[in-house]
């Protein structure tokens, strides 16, 4: 059922000159190219049709690919995930949208009890190549329930892959990779970066779906980030150069599975690490990162691995969110606390 790529898509892959592209446009292109490349791919969710999604990520797709392939559903998240499971059982590749992070919670049972487990339950006989796109995180002045960082819930669930892009080019690559992946993928889109631009060629070539990448090489400390915090980490790394710290920034890309190899290599080399995320720190994803790296790098570490996270509070209202979210200053403070003087 796999169709050949249209001339336009071929051009995008082979001959496209690097051009400025937003993450939103890159995601839209990834959906369009996946729909064009594989007839089994469907896109559905709330307001993804005529409206093109509340963030316009699915803009124009219904017109181009018909209502049979890109369509609005009733307003019910468990219904969306549950029916996506049934469609995948019947040979289709659903790419569904949850409108906002916190609005995915009604589907929690379908995520954890079925989407994550059906392959295991049936000893591999039932594969569920479902992609769930979820705009996540804060930084856009959203009111309550629109800014959650929900990654730990999914990453804790065996059987789900959890990925999140940090750049527009990677948004295209990771989404195409996720749609091609035989496992269910929770695709977390850092909504504060939808309008960030990068001059890039959109391609699926590059790091695999489960690989972390070094966004900025450095020798003194490994700064680990993902999603919306990648740009913040890079900003902090530039500022740290002024303090004579040569900071390496790693974009995790895949939260589950975790790329131990890339991370361990870096941390053993630098001897120091800070992990950054927007979500509250308590029992958060950063705790897993710090624990794994401590277990594997203990004798190489010059200082405890520190976490820079959101506060352990429910997500704040718009006028207070800047106090909650990690920024470059908070990251630099953490880097400064990495026991630089102990061996002086």
């Amino acid at each position, binding site marked *: 059922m796999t169709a050949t790529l249209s001339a336009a898509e071929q051009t995008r892959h082979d001959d496209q000159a690097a051009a400025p592209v937003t993450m939103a446009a890159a995601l839209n292109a990834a959906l369009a190219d996946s729909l064009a490349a594989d007839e089994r791919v469907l896109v559905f969710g709330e307001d993804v049709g005529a409206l093109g999604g509340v963030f316009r990520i699915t803009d124009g797709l219904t017109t181009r690919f018909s209502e049979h392939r890109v369509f609005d559903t009733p307003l019910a998240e468990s219904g969306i995930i*549950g029916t996506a499971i*049934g469609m995948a059982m019947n*040979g*289709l590749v659903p790419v569904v949208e949850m409108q906002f992070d916190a609005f995915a919670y009604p589907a929690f049972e379908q995520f954890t*009890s079925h989407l994550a487990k059906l*392959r*295991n*339950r049936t000893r591999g006989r039932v*594969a569920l190549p479902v992609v769930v796109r979820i705009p996540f995180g804060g930084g856009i002045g959203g009111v309550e329930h629109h800014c959650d960082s929900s990654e730990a819930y999914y990453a804790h669930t065996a059987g789900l892959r959890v990925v999140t892009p940090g750049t527009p080019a990677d948004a295209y690559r990771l989404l195409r990779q996720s749609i091609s992946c035989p496992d269910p993928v929770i695709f977390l889109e850092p909504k504060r970066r939808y309008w960030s631009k990068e001059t890039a060629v959109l391609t699926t070539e590059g790091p695999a779906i489960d690989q972390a990448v070094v966004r900025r090489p450095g020798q003194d400390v490994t700064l680990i980030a993902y999603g919306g915090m990648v740009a913040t980490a890079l900003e902090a790394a530039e500022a740290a150069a002024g303090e004579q710290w040569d900071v390496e920034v790693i974009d995790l890309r895949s939260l589950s599975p975790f790329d131990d190899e890339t991370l361990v290599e870096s941390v053993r080399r630098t001897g120091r690490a800070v992990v950054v995320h927007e979500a509250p720190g308590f029992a958060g994803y950063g705790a897993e990162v710090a624990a794994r790296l401590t277990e594997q790098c203990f004798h190489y570490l010059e200082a405890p691995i520190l976490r820079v996270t959101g506060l352990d509070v429910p997500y704040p209202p718009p006028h207070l969110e800047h106090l909650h979210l990690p920024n470059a200053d908070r990251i630099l403070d953490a880097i400064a606390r990495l026991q630089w003087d102990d061996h002086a």
Partner: protein
Amino acid sequence: MTTFADTEPAVSAGSLLPSATPLQLIDADGRPAENPGGLSLPEQGILLELYRRMVIGRRFDSQATALTKQGRLAVYPSSRGQDACQVGSTLALRSHDWLFPTYRDSVAIITRGVEPAEALSLLRGDWHCGYDPYQYRVAPQCTPLATNTLHAVGLAHAASLKNEDVVALVLLGDGATSEGDTHEALNFSGVWKAPVVFLVQNNGYAISVPLAKQTAASTLAAKGIGYGVPSLLIDGNDAAAVYSAVSASVERAARGQGPTLIEAITYRVEAHTNADDATRYRASDEVQAWLARDPITRLETYLKAAGLLDEQAITRRAAEAEQFAERVRDLMNGTVDVNPGDLFDHVYAQPTAALEQQRAALLAEMEDGAR
């Protein structure tokens, strides 16, 4: 062929409401029912097969209950009393249709042809699902309530999108109608006109909670109207009525006319599972009254009166069921064969590096005798 859209409508024109009383083809005394609604009596060969499969299913069910007492099964939720629903609904499916069963629907699964050892894998505890869903077109038995309704709608809608003639039958209980997923599934199926049949086996209890505490609705079937889904209220202890209602609904779905909600009134004769004590929440005379309305006895009486079944045939059917039970006993009396590799092999399409490390560590533990 049984239909209700082409003959006297079971769902009256202009209304999606079910009948006021459960439709029957054969009454509780085994006589032709006075008001079959739009249901039509299945042909003789089907009636005999319904009887045969119910006798086998009943024997399988009692054998499984006995196996729990011997410790051979971890748990068994019996469907005794719901035999007509289990067998009538499953036999009404075509070979290319799909069945979405729950944990209480083991008899439906073996009626569909799943090997008993594979069907009992979940309840024996050697794996969560022992059969290949694609081989039998039977989804894994669903333990969470009502979640399978959405899977059925999705699978059926996918068939529509692919222009495939496939209908999905999903089994659920009265308790499951209180779950949100049931409402979402009925709603999605109505909007999409998905080829789905919802069969609610209203057996009176959700573990210990009676229907009166589950809903204020006059019937569960009546819930269909809110979703634009036509519904049928039937006597769930009448195998002919179950078969007729489900096959008519399957045909209706296959014609592109969308979903049907069927409520079948039946009774869970046994406790919720072997771990439950039903005497804490219901009186034994209630159970006795339902035993007198046994679905197998009812069909047997009808078939004998119609001259389609004699004592010799009844004895043959019983002997066949006994052979089946013996085979189940033999299969379950063997040692449980489990593979530790199953823990890691199918979490993802390819085990992750971290899982491979855990596999190696577990194997080392086992070699050391620590496990």
